[in-house]
């Protein structure tokens, strides 16, 4: 590197640059948190949804599936499964049937475990997925297949 550019200039660039961008990032985070109520579907965050999220975590569903595109890529996206599988009219029935039918036991096919959840739990999980599908994702995913 050129001699004109000294080590102390490099250090100042590091200290000044990182401090500056940390502050901007904190500021933007505060603004994001402020804007979230209009975007994150919190009005539908019920007790049941909270319970459903806990079940989602306690069974590590994200270890196979993605949710809003994050997680594993072994099994289908579930951020929009509510719309894909029946919506308001049919999703809950579909979902309970699906969960109770696992594992399907088709040789060679990717298998989903049986989690032995109660009917109440399944209701809550379905509510959680419905809530997740209502988050404003800037139009993602591109189509219904997720």
């Amino acid at each position, binding site marked *: 590197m050129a001699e004109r550019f000294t080590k102390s200039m490099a250090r100042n660039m590091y200290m000044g*640059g990182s401090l500056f961008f940390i502050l901007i990032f904190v500021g933007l985070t505060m603004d994001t948190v402020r804007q979230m109520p209009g975007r*994150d579907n919190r009005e539908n965050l019920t007790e049941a949804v909270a319970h459903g999220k806990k079940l989602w975590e306690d069974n*590590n569903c*994200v*270890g196979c599936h993605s949710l809003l595109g*994050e997680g594993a890529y072994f099994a289908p996206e579930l951020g929009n499964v509510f719309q894909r599988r029946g919506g308001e009219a049919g999703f809950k029935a579909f979902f309970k049937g699906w969960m109770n039918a696992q594992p399907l036991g088709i040789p060679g096919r990717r298998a989903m*475990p049986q989690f032995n959840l109660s009917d109440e739990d399944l209701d809550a999980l379905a509510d959680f997925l419905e809530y997740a599908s209502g988050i404003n994702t800037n139009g993602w995913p591109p189509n219904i*297949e997720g």
Partner: protein
Amino acid sequence: MKYESQAVAKPYFIFALVLFVGQILFGLVLGTQYIIGDFLFPEIPFNVARMVHTNLLIVWLLFGFMGAAYYMIPEEAETELHSPKLAWALFWIFAAAGTLTIVGYLAVPYATLAEITGNDLWPTMGREFLEMPTITKVGIVVVCLGFLYNIGMTVLKGRKTVINLVLITGLLGLALMFLFSFYNPTNLALDKYFWWYVVHLWVEGTWELIMASILAYVLIKVTGVDREVIEKWLYVIIAMALISGILGTGHHFFWIGAPEYWLWLGSIFSAIEPIPFFMMTLFAFNMVNRRRREHPNRAATLWALGCAVMAFLGAGVWGFLHTLAPINYYTHGTQLTAAHAHMAFYGAYVMIVLTIVSYAMPIMRGRPNGNSNKAQVVEMWGFWLMTIAMVFITLFLTGAGVLQIWLQRLPESGEALSFMATQDQIVIFYWLRLIAGLFFMAGLVVYLVSFFVGGDEPQLEKA
């Protein structure tokens, strides 16, 4: 070895390599399950194997970073480590906690593990990469605090070099960002937003400081280039890393509920994230070309150069490939993500740990000039096998990803293939990936064998 206490790095490195083997074995299980869906089901479901694979990766890299710090910091500070006893105690605590957690994953269903470890009291489990029980997370924090205290005291009483300060800053940042893993709101969008504070600000922030300082240290040792020059480079590299990487976090805020301005900010700032990685490549080759000595440990030099190149390819090139919002709209959460994840983690963090291991292990084993030529040749075979295998893993996953996007993402609803149908169409790439994975495993075995190859120590040559 200038200071006796540097030797505590040895158990850290050895245990890291043992976990590395476990990580790759479970990688092979995953690769097989991608093709034969019910392989090992229901004994080891995919999600369990995946947690073991990714958590072993993170934990062995942490062992590697700690080993690196215990080795480098006393020598840079020109004083003995504050407390080797504490370092040993923390080693056993961390090793035991890590082993118990992995055994827990494999021995009982995850929901049971969550229940018996008190996830009801403070739920933090069941989120990608942060699957470990809350008490394990607390254990990690305790180990980090003890570790930071130990190296902090060492730095305070000794010489304060730039390398030491950058390394410590990176490690402090690592511990600090990990605290966000304890924040898990029921609001999914906020949960995801702050989850990235851990994951992104680790790999594209604090860990880059750690990587750059280890690279700088090894380059000083093997090239003999003046410290002033190296330190200037180091500052500029980490400056660029943080200037681009902090707001670059925005490339994860496109589709999780955050405001639209992140589409712009995330795209722009993450698009400059490749620069620090490119600079590390220039840095490494420049210093080696300007070397003032021929260090007899040529394997360590090869790792340092290879790390810089592969980190640039995996993080810089494969990262840039999908980081602009209009592209990420289609690539988000596909096999392309996995392709990038593999090469970036391998090129940057696996290889930087193997670089310091390659440099420091021979010295700790009483061979100040490096291993015998015979052993180095075997080690370099391991280097090439693993690295080329990883290039192919990345290329095959990229093929799978592009086809997946073509079939499942680009067509309109109704025309697009479903996820599962798409997976059937791209299975050939998963076969190829698995074969490349077997070569990776073979390379790892060759690498480990190199530790047991004898022969005479190489002689110092004058440049």
